């Protein structure tokens, strides 16, 4: 008996099947990665805890009313001014800060002056970046949009200061350092992590919020 060749399988419809699957995945999936402004909420305090007494000059007060108007340090301001005002406030360095008890040398010592600040050293503004508190007060009917803009501007002010400090200390901006650290997921670079931590301690992010 003569051996017959098996007939060739028709693969013409293979493309159709693949297209069908492709379209299914195009429709049911999304590509966007969620991103946003990260904040840490304060821990819940028992009712008996007395609020600490803080000097008024160490508080930078941003109030947003129900018409989305901004009042910063009792003056009417616009959104564009927030960043510069926040930079001036945090970077003022007019007095002694809290003791930094993180990197050995300063441990247990009294508070020191801010040697890395480039501000005006104004007596009526903040003492030290680690004492400078940014307070955001909002009304219940304040729009979320303006609230996010203000939060973003405050973050931008801090990023600016951290970048400037990191550039001076390590010749690399803070943003670049964080990015590099993210890329080093497999072999983390401990010295880089310490540098980032140090910058964060030198310009900490202290924000309080109040909603009426």
């Amino acid at each position, binding site marked *: 008996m003569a051996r017959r060749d098996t007939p060739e399988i028709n693969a013409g419809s293979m493309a159709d099947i693949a297209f069908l699957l492709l379209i299914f*995945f195009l429709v049911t999936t999304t590509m966007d*990665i969620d991103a*946003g*402004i*990260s904040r840490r909420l304060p821990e819940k305090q028992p009712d008996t805890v007395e609020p600490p007494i803080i000097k008024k000059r160490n508080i930078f007060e941003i109030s947003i009313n129900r018409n989305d108007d901004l009042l910063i340090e009792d003056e009417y301001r616009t959104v564009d001014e927030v960043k510069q005002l926040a930079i001036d406030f945090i970077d003022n360095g007019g007095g002694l800060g809290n003791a930094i008890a993180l990197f050995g040398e300063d441990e247990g010592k009294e508070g020191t002056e801010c040697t890395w600040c480039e501000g005006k050293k104004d007596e009526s503004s903040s003492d030290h970046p680690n004492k400078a508190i940014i307070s955001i007060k*909002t009304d219940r009917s*304040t729009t*979320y949009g303006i609230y996010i*803009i203000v939060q973003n501007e405050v973050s931008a002010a801090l990023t600016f200061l951290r970048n400037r400090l990191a550039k001076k200390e390590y010749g690399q901006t803070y943003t670049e350092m964080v990015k590099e650290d993210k890329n080093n997921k497999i072999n983390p670079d401990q010295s880089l992590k310490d540098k980032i931590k140090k910058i964060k301690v030198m310009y900490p992010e202290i924000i309080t919020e109040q909603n009426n």
Partner: protein
Amino acid sequence: MSKFKKNKKGLPPINTASLPDIVFMLLFFFMVATTMRETSVLVKNDLPNATEIKKLSEKRLTSTIYVGPPISSPEGVTDAGDLIQLNDKIASVKDVRNFIYMAREGVPSEEQGAMTTLIKSDINSTVGTISDIKKELREINALKVTYATRQGSDKK
């Protein structure tokens, strides 16, 4: 003469054998690069823009709360207030607690500290609603919060 006639016999059919391969390649790309759409959003959700943003890479450790005005408000009502959406349902602030507890259940305890609540709020919703949610989150010690935004700047 016959030499030229031979060439006019018509074009040979294009070989489409590699077409499935190309399509499969595309298919695999999309399967790898995208994630399944989990919920359909029932509220208006026009996110604000911001520049100082951080990406949330761990989808597993993120629980999303949508906030925004209803897509179609009942007739005659112009300002119906903000709605809160948890999973696929419209819920109230009180349900946020259970929602976070449920989310915690599926996560091993050593990773629970890294869990983030992503608040996806419409640009026109009010801070009052957001602050109610944040109060609830504080009560149950879910302190990491991210306000979802898009990349860009929209200063007025």
